[in-house]
């Protein structure tokens, strides 16, 4: 509710609910603190101004209400941390869905675009080598590797299937970028030299924006991509069409 009031973008992923829930709890907790402290603050400022209270009291607040409040803050924070935050993260980084269940897509950043690399029907990524990189082969796919024959690459458009977990393997060719999909409540830096998995399960068909969330140069602000969450059929159509464009020979066999 508080999140809504603050204008949070709608959620479109399964685990996003837990993220949102936690943020909501946090915000209520903060509001509560701010209101309690703020009330005390306003009362003090009003009641103890000089004209109203000319002689200060050496001892001020007596009793230990403030210590109790502090202990309560600590307890709430500990609960949030151990009850929500840590398990949620473990789920994200330890229980990455496996090959059979999830769709694996590579997201490779470059100044200033995203390349999304699909393994194609055979499910195996082709070998890559920087020596093959050209404007038309931005990922340097090795033309002699049969596994790469059905691989497709789309620029700035990520197609995924609704309800099917996606594992994005995030990396970069040049500087650090970051994949951030606010609707999916996920983000991951794209660091050259490493490939880090990032997963989520989209639950709403639609088109959402992907942000490059790390300063990457003059074009950073415009490094926008889209994620298209589609039904299975639509995805298949996309795959087929792209393949016929990128690999006319292989595509006709299929």
């Amino acid at each position, binding site marked *: 509710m508080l999140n809504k009031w*603050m*204008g*949070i973008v709608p959620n479109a992923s399964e685990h996003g609910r837990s*993220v949102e829930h*936690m*943020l909501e709890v946090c*915000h209520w907790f*903060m509001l509560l*603190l701010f209101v309690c*402290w*703020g009330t005390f*603050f306003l009362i*003090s*400022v009003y009641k*103890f101004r*000089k004209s109203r*209270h000319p*002689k*200060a*009291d*050496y001892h*001020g607040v007596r009793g230990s209400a*403030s210590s109790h*409040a502090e202990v309560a803050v600590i307890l709430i*924070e500990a609960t*949030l*941390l151990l009850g929500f*935050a*840590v398990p949620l*993260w*473990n789920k*994200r*980084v*330890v229980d990455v869905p496996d090959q059979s269940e999830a769709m694996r897509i590579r997201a490779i950043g*470059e100044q200033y675009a995203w390349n999304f690399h699909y393994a194609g029907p055979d499910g195996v990524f082709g070998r890559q080598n*920087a020596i093959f*990189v*050209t*404007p038309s082969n931005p990922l340097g796919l090795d033309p002699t590797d049969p596994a790469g024959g059905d691989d497709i690459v789309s620029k700035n458009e990520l197609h995924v299937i609704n309800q099917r977990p996606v594992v994005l393997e995030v990396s970069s060719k040049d*500087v650090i970028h970051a994949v*951030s999909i*606010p*609707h999916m*409540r996920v*983000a*991951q830096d794209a*660091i*050259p*030299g*490493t490939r880090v998995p990032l997963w989520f399960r989209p639950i709403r068909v639609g088109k959402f*924006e992907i*942000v490059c*969330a*790390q300063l*990457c*140069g003059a*074009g950073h*602000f*415009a490094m*926008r991509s889209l994620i298209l969450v589609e039904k299975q059929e639509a995805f298949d159509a996309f795959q087929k069409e792209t393949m016929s464009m990128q690999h006319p020979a292989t595509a006709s066999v299929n």
Partner: protein
Amino acid sequence: MSTIATADTGHHDATKEHGHGEHHHPELGFLQRWVFSTDHKVIGLQYAVTGLSFLFFGFLLMLVMRWQLASPGQPVPMVGAFLRSVFGQTVMTDAGALTAAGYNVFGAMHGTIMVFFGIVPVAVAGFGNFVVPLQIGAPDMAFPKLNMASFWCFFTSCVIMTGSFFVPGSAAKSGWTAYPPLAGIADLEGGNIWLNGQTIWLIAMVFNITGSLLGSINFITTIIQLRAPGLTWMRLPFFVWAQFVTAFLLVLAFPPLEAAGFMQLTDRVLGTSFFMPTGLMIGQSVAQTWSGGGSPILWQHLFWFLAHPEVYVLILPAIGIVSEVVANNTRKPLHGYKAMVYSVFVLGFLSFIVWAHHMYMTGMGAKVAAFFQVTTIMISVPSVILLTSLLMSLWGGSIRFNTPMLFATAFLPMFGLGGLTGIPLAFNAVDLFLHDTYYVIGHFHYVVAPGTIFGLFAGVYFWYPKVTGRKMSEFLGHVHFWGSLITINGIFFPMFLQGMAGVHRRWYDGGVTYEQLAGPVLHWNMVMTVSAGLLALFQLVFIWNFFTSWKLGQKVGRNPWDATTLDWDTPTPPPHGNFDKPLMVYRGPYEYSVPGHPTDFIPQTEKV
């Protein structure tokens, strides 16, 4: 007495021969007195004035950026052509609008200048130099010459950093965080490996860091060695504690960044690859310039190892100032002084082991993430204690709302808001959503702008009479305060709303590209920008007040605020050597409204 005195330092000490005797030295020339001075008060002023100017400069850079955010691509009104001629074509178009590269230049320099050339020089070096020796009853800093060296190191860094705007390709443009490989490759194409923005940024930072290190060593030594007789640790004003811990943070956290700075420098000029991974591509081909094998993440570790403690460096002196002002103007002791002292130590300690909360997105496993979340949450506890103690201190007071107190009072809820919004960021699952958005920008500006800067304003209004012998105008002070309070919230509160909507930082066009995420909240940009413009106008009031009061303000005596601490026990302005009487401290720092005492304050030196 005087025989004994000479025995200690030795009668031959060079300074003595130059005539630093009992009295003021009319024979000291202008240069020695105001420029190459070793007097802590003059050095403090030098720092403060340089730092304030940089704060203002940093703000002006931001005004240009805010203009761009509210009206992307439009020439900057009135000064566009002027900016074009000063900053050149990388930064400004011929029409006088900011370019995308220029936006990054200004952004990186705004962050760098505000943090390392604005707040730290004013809060730590300026107030620290002027006030700390006075508050502990020392005649000067422990190492006056080192103090001067520290300022000139800092000043050199200022000149170098400012100069970097004028090299081909303009100043650094990779964020104040200077993450490689972006920063590693920035400005290198075709240019001179030395004369370019990022390289100069690194060199300037090395000087800046060195100056900070020398200064901090001096502070710690001074506080340990030069406390007046009777001034035991638990009788120190809280401001001194805050500076003490701050100095430790600087001494121990800055060197790793200096090391990292050297490494980035050699990456740029010697072709090493500390931070450059294997197979790095520039454009369509693998960069052959670097041998490879480095790690971009290593820089982030070393950077945040400093930069997290650094944020407490930004806030602690302000909390110290606010404590002094609150105690003085509530006319009662601080609530929980001891708890505050312990908290500030715990805060200092923990701040060294939380740094990776800025790196949640770099791909951390479960163990590391849990560790840094736990420590980050732990560090909020001492902050809560500090703020709560200050809040509790109001209760039962007899509050005088003069200008310093207004700023100090406003500091409390403003810092509260900033601190509270740090809490969701600490949970990395939530930070997944909030990282790099304007929510983060809102979080830290609440702590540094209406937080630290308000604390600094409180300090300026509070100690101005000690420095100049005159008070600043109360009326203009009130105008400055209310104007700043309202407009500054107008700038920073909408940032939370934008952040929640998914607006990210470092966007040149303020979000126009992203219809879905920024579209619904784009209108806030105008509100924020107008507020920033108005805020600037209210700062002019301050600047006017600051300079005119020097000659026209109401004259005051030694202790215009009826304060208790030793800084108010000197002549105004304090002479060379500070004190005109032997000192002995008999009591704690905040003995206000002691029951049964005729006046409502008892100076620390009063025996009763």
